[in-house]
C-alpha cells in the first residue's frame, strides 16, 4: 500500500528580503517590512530585525523567526548575567549557528544575516542557512529577493575569493553614506520585480557611535 502523504505542512513562507554589508568601521543591516502569505499581505509593518550588540535580520517563516529571536534573547540575557557584559558579534554568530543546528531534524525555517562590529571595531557580517551553516562575509542577502540582489552586489562590492592566500579582507572600502545609498538602490530594484518585497525598508546602522535606525518607503504594490 503506497505511503500516505501529509497534506498539512508545519511551515509557511512569509516572504521578504534582508541584507547586510560590512564596512571598515560600520555595518549596515536592512530588511523590508512586508509580511505575506501566498498572494496576500498580512502586514506592511512588521519588524524583521532584532538587536543585541549586533543586529540579526531574518526572512522566511516569521513564526519560527519569532521563536528563534525569543530563544536568542533568553540566551543573551543568561550570558549577560554570567559574564557581566553583552555578547560580542562573533560570539552571537556561533550561538546562532548552534541554536539552528540543535533543530537540525525539524529546522527553524529562518534565513538569517547577522551584522555588527567585531572586537577591533571593524564591520562583520555573518550569513546563515536554515540549519546553521555560517560564514563570515563582506555582504550577504537572504530571502525572496536575494536571487535578485546578490548578483548586483557581487558586481558593486567585488568580494575577494575566500580561497586566496594570504586571506584578504572582505569588508567594503565604501563610506557609510555610500553603503546606505547602495542598500536603498538595491531594495528599490528588488521591490520592482519581487512581489514579496516592498512597503517599507528598515535600515539599521551600527558604528562606533552606537546603533541607529532609519526608514525608507518602498513600492506598496
Amino acid at each position, binding site marked *: 500500500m503506497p505511503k500516505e502523504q501529509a497534506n498539512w505542512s508545519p511551515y509557511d513562507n512569509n516572504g521578504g528580503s534582508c541584507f547586510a554589508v560590512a564596512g571598515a568601521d560600520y555595518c549596515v543591516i536592512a530588511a523590508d517590512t512586508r509580511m505575506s502569505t501566498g498572494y496576500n499581505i498580512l502586514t506592511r509593518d512588521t519588524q524583521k530585525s532584532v538587536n543585541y550588540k549586533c543586529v540579526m535580520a531574518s526572512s522566511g517563516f516569521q513564526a519560527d523567526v519569532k521563536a528563534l529571536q525569543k530563544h536568542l534573547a533568553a540566551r543573551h540575557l543568561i550570558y549577560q548575567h554570567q559574564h557581566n557584559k553583552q555578547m560580542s558579534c562573533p560570539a552571537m554568530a556561533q550561538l546562532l549557528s548552534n541554536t539552528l543546528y540543535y533543530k537540525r531534524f525539524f529546522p527553524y525555517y529562518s534565513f538569517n544575516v547577522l551584522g555588527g562590529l567585531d572586537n577591533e571595531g571593524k564591520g562583520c557580517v555573518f550569513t546563515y542557512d536554515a540549519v546553521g551553516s555560517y560564514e563570515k562575509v563582506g555582504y550577504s542577502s537572504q530571502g525572496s*529577493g536575494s*536571487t*535578485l*540582489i*546578490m*548578483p*548586483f552586489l*557581487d*558586481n558593486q562590492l567585488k568580494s575577494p575569493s575566500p580561497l586566496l592566500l594570504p586571506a584578504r579582507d572582505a569588508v567594503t572600502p565604501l563610506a557609510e553614506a555610500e553603503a546606505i545609498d547602495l542598500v536603498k*538602490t*538595491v531594495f528599490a*530594484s*528588488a521591490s*520592482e*520585480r519581487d512581489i514579496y518585497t516592498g512597503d517599507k525598508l528598515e535600515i539599521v546602522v551600527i558604528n562606533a557611535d552606537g546603533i541607529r535606525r532609519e526608514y525608507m518607503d518602498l513600492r506598496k504594490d
Partner: protein
Amino acid sequence: MSIFEYNGSALVSMVGKNCFAIASDRRLGVQLQTIATDFQRISKIHDRVFLGLSGLATDAQTLYQRLVFRHKLYQVREERDMKPVTFANLVSALLYEKRFGPYFCQPVIAGLGDEDKPFICTMDSIGAKELAKDFVVAGTASESLYGACESMFKEDMEPEELFETVSQALLSSVDRDCLSGWGGHVYVVTPTEVKERILKGRMD
C-alpha cells in the same frame, strides 16, 4: 530537475537610444555536465530582427529551423523582411499551436521596427507575449538577471554604454547560476551596424 533547467541558459535584451542589445551565455550542459562552451543561443533572422531561445536546446534548435523556414517563405511571398512585431506574433502562434505538448523554450525577440524604433519582447513556452520598454530576460538565470538589470538599467543609453550595462548585468547574473556561464555573447544593433562581441567571464 525541471525540463527547462536541463541544458541551462541565460538571455537578456535591453533597449537603448535607437538601438538594442541582446546577449546570452555560451554554456550548453546536460544537467550538471558541461558539453559545449561555445553554444549559440542567439540567431539572426534578418539584419533587423534577432531571436534568442532559452530552455531545452533541442526544442530551441527545432523551433529556430521552423521559424527560419517561415520567414524565408514570407520573404518569397512579400518580397521584404518581417517586422519585429510581426515576427513576434509568428513565434507566439507557432508556440500556441503546441499548447498541449509545448516546445520547452522561452524566446527573446529583439529588433528595430518602423522608424528604427527598438522592439523587444519575451514569451513563455506557450506563446504569451510580454512586451517591455526597458529589458527582458529569460533562462535559468532569469531571477538574477531581473535583479541586476533592474538596478543597472537607464533610459536612452548610447550603444557603447548599453553594451557595458548588458555585459555587466549578464556576467554578474550568470556567476550566481551554476547552469549558465562560460562567457557571453553580446549583439549591439543600431540602424547602421550590428556589433557582435564575445565576453570573457568566469569559466566555471
